[in-house]
């Protein structure tokens, strides 16, 4: 299994403060925590290419290095080409598509196998023909995760995950996701809204140190896991 290395070093001027984040992540999970509005989502969006930082570099190595963003070299790859799985805070499921169609939307038309595989893996059997509005919050989140993993991303970004789910499933799914990501050797960056949930969730894979000088600066320094 090849190791993947995600390098992030970005600066962006925001209304209330300047965002300044840098870390390196090697096929492991990294948690970013802090109060809302401290730049967590902004950091993830910069990695995914939804938001452009003012300055800096974002790159991913999987064998060879792919530069996603480089302000000096004027490189800015489209989000479509970054192959990043992004779980939105509100899951961003397409309300006009069924569960099945949501999971299939990033795949080639004839790839039915991956869809049924993901439906199975995320306990969505029987819900294939439902629309997102007809699902509970926890079910919606599982659909969103199934959709991301079906696409086979190189990096996973989870924006404040696991807040809406019931505890039992939360625990089960957490283990499942971790196993799955570990098998694929994927770097995972996730955000956590508060310290309370942090202690239970990141304890078994948290490595590194984090500095948050909110509100002036949000700063993560040279985090290398392993």
């Amino acid at each position: 299994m090849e190791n993947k290395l995600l390098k992030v070093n970005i600066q962006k001027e925001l209304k209330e403060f300047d965002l300044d984040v840098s870390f390196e992540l090697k096929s492991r999970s990294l948690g970013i925590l802090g109060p809302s509005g401290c730049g967590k989502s902004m950091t993830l969006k910069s990695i995914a290419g939804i938001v452009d930082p003012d300055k800096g570099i974002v790159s991913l190595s999987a064998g060879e290095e792919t530069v996603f963003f480089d302000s000096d070299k004027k490189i800015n790859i489209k989000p479509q080409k970054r192959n990043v799985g992004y779980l939105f805070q509100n899951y961003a499921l397409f309300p006009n598509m069924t569960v099945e169609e949501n999971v299939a939307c990033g795949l080639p038309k004839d790839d039915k196998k991956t869809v049924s595989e993901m439906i199975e893996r995320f306990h969505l059997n029987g819900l294939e023909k439902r629309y997102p509005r007809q699902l509970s919050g926890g079910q919606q989140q599982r659909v969103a995760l199934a959709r991301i993993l079906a696409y086979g991303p190189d990096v996973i970004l989870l924006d404040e995950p696991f807040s809406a789910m019931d505890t039992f499933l939360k625990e089960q799914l957490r283990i499942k996701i971790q196993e799955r990501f570990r098998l694929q050797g994927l770097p995972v960056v996730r955000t956590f809204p508060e310290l309370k949930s942090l202690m239970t969730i990141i304890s078994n894979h948290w490595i590194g140190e984090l500095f948050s000088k909110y509100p002036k600066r949000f700063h993560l320094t040279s985090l290398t896991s392993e």
Partner: protein
Amino acid sequence: MTTDWSPVFISMKTASLSIFITFFVGLFVAWGLVKLKNDSIKIVLDGIFTLPLVLPPTVVGFFLLWIFGVRGPIGKFFIDFFTVKIAFSWSATVIAAVVMSFPLMYRSARGAFEQVDSNLLDAGRTLGMSEWKIFWKILFANALPGIISGGILAYARGLGEFGATAMLAGNIAGETRTLPMAVYSEVAAGNMGEAFNYVIVIVIIAFIAIFIMDYISIRKEKQWK
């Protein structure tokens, strides 16, 4: 005296072709404007595209005549190169209807697009969907009820177009005399009975159109809920 039914066919032809043009042009102009990041350009363009809605139709007709008339830049071009006269021909009724109904379509579509959660579009992007696919499958599909109601309004506006049509296309029987024109002509000539026939037809067409489009949008919406 038997009623001359040509205004019915002329109106149907004009309204159908003009809603076809207005629908797609309005849709893509709205999309372009939603994507536009520069606010001052946005405001200027929005002003231009909305103008026909707030100006008196005869003023819009005046401008159209100025552009498409025999001495106007586009009118002259068509005469010189294609020997086609636009003003006071059937195509002029279509141009007038398109320009007058355009703001309704454009504004409705734009409002409907802006209601769609931008996270959905970003989700589509991170999932590798092309911008074209995102437009149709996500933006258009989720804005559909608003787009359809814009289409209804634009269609009704095109069907009822009078002022600008009178200026640019005139009132030539069998050629540019649409239903609203025919109603006016008959009333002016004192034939209230004839005018009444046209009025009935136009009310029925308008009602059917609204019924069909409403039916589609209600069914579509129910499906996801």
